[in-house]
């Protein structure tokens, strides 16, 4: 219980810090949301009226206080630009992001874990060196460049997948998966390398342990030694990296979302920043901060699942 309470306090501190900083940053920008609302041909008088209308004339601290009070009542405010409630906008952009993250991290796991296991089992083998070289090559290419190559071959040439656009789940599972496949793969192509390298190095250390020698002395086959004995104690670093990757993708897959025209949270945030739509930006930042802290919480709980020694110490690593 103390663990949960501590995490909750942590959440509040993180949210206050992040939203206050975002607010301050938006306030420092010279332009104002009123320009975006008023349009290109508005007069100075129009803009002043809109400023007044949106409450942008108040000092920044007052506006932040008002926003915060709204959040506590469960009201994230309305978009300054479109008038749409922020909560509604986020909810409508969430499915694309969540699906993209889940699919990308699924592909990441599916490649990183087997490759990590095989590379660590035979360090410096041809397979190990091939995968390491390939991995370093992939991480040094930006994911959008890879995405464009994928789009060119798999979407434009072979026409297996749509090049852009998002089909929601309501349009059917298959079209939905097809529309997310290329974006997820372009993210996973970069992400798996990091996860694999972390898992590989931790596995190499675990495989030197006496209990692995004892498992071999029991006559167990290699796959049992790897999966039943070596994998679980080697997952700490990978779990940490995995959590960071998920958190990062929730707001940070913006380039891939933009490239594939996916209506995700990253794009919503970016549009909000361009329009000086502080209510929208704050809403997105709030979501990302909550997601980060929640993932962090799950990762800490995961350590306890991985290792009973952590459990006894009341999440000593957390």
């Amino acid at each position: 219980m103390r663990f949960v309470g501590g995490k909750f306090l942590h959440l509040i501190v993180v949210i206050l810090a992040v939203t206050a900083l975002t607010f301050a940053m938006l306030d420092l920008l010279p332009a104002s949301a009123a320009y975006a609302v008023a349009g290109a041909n508005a007069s100075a008088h129009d803009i002043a009226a809109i400023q007044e209308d949106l409450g942008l004339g108040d000092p920044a601290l007052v506006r932040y206080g008002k926003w915060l009070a709204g959040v506590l009542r469960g009201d994230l405010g309305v978009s300054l630009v479109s008038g749409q409630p922020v909560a509604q906008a986020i909810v409508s952009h969430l499915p694309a992001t969540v699906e993209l993250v889940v699919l990308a991290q699924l592909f990441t796991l599916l490649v990183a874990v087997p490759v990590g296991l095989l590379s660590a089992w035979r360090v410096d083998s041809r397979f190990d060196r091939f995968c390491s070289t390939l991995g370093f090559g992939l991480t040094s290419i930006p994911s959008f460049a890879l995405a464009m190559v994928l789009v060119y071959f798999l979407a434009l040439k072979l026409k297996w997948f749509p090049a852009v656009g998002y089909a929601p789940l309501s349009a059917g599972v298959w079209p939905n998966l097809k529309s997310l496949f290329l974006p997820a793969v372009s993210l996973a192509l970069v992400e798996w390398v990091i996860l694999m390298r972390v898992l590989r190095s931790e596995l190499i250390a675990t495989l030197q342990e006496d209990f692995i020698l004892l498992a071999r002395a029991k006559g167990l086959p290699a796959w049992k030694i790897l999966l039943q004995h070596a994998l679980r104690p080697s997952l700490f670093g990978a779990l940490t990296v995995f959590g960071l990757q998920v958190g990062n993708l929730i707001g940070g897959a913006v380039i891939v979302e933009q490239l594939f025209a996916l209506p995700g949270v990253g794009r919503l945030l970016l549009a909000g920043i361009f329009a000086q739509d502080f209510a929208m930006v704050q809403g997105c930042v709030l979501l990302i901060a909550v997601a980060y802290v929640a993932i962090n919480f799950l990762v800490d709980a995961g350590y306890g699942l991985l290792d009973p020694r952590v459990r006894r110490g009341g999440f000593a690593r957390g």
Partner: protein
Amino acid sequence: MREPLPLLVVDKLSVHLPCGDRIVRAIDEVSFTLQRGQTLALVGESGSGKSMLCRAIMGLVPGRALLPAPGRIVFAGQDLGALKASERAGLCGRRIGMVLQDPLSALNPVMKIGRQIAEPMRHHLGMSRDQARERSFELLRAVGIAQAETRIDCYPHQLSGGMRQRVVIAIALACEPQLLIADEPTTALDVTVQADILDLLARLQQERNMAMILVSHNLGVVAGRAHETAVMYAGRIVEQAPTDELFARMRMRYTRALFDAIPRLDDPAQAMLTAIGGQSPDLAALPDGCSFAPRCARAEARCSDQAPTLVSDGHARHRYACWFPCAVGANT
């Protein structure tokens, strides 16, 4: 009278480890035989090749290690070198059990001990989960763990060091092996439980008529617990004899030095511990002559020119490798 077919024959076994452009001779032409139900003690200082020898018998040498001809390991009439890797793994844990030095690191920290004991039985004997669990209770009781019913669901960190070593022994015994290799089974343990574990091993060995290889750096540990003792230095066996005979008539100065290094209760309180001077030799660049010569008080020119080979003492299967052995009966 013909001797019965030995359980284990190690014949001119060498293990070489390539290390850069040098070759480390971890084991150099070691030969011995072990009869069923007998205990052979391997004694020597750290780095003398005892553990590597155990691992070679188990087939667990590092991947880059070379086992040059004509070295052979014959277990129950089977040349282990001729077996496929899978057949070899079929012997490990089933007919040959192993106990490692440090019970704190020999058990998987994230797996309940019940599963770790059951594992070889499920794998080799095809037992069901319940059968293996029943048998695990018996094994835990056999190795002297009280309250087996609750302890079986413990994780290793919830048990003491001595208890964990008992669990490791239970794992080694799970499939009723014919040979038990105990690699320094008490070195990492509290002095108060060392004797318990050694007595337990001796009792189990007699009850089950197992052969045992008992490795130690402490000659005192093997006294009275091994039928035969082989003393190792720099990857070779340098003296070997029935244990009583060895203690009565040590011929090698190295053996005597190991013996003198055992602290004794009747030593005066502030007495310095006796150590063997010098360092063990570089196994990648062994001298031409006797490898112990640089540290031997009685070494002469011949010792550094010509390596002595194991010769018979002509008395009770006592063999040693020294040009100028200690005089029989001389206790200095």
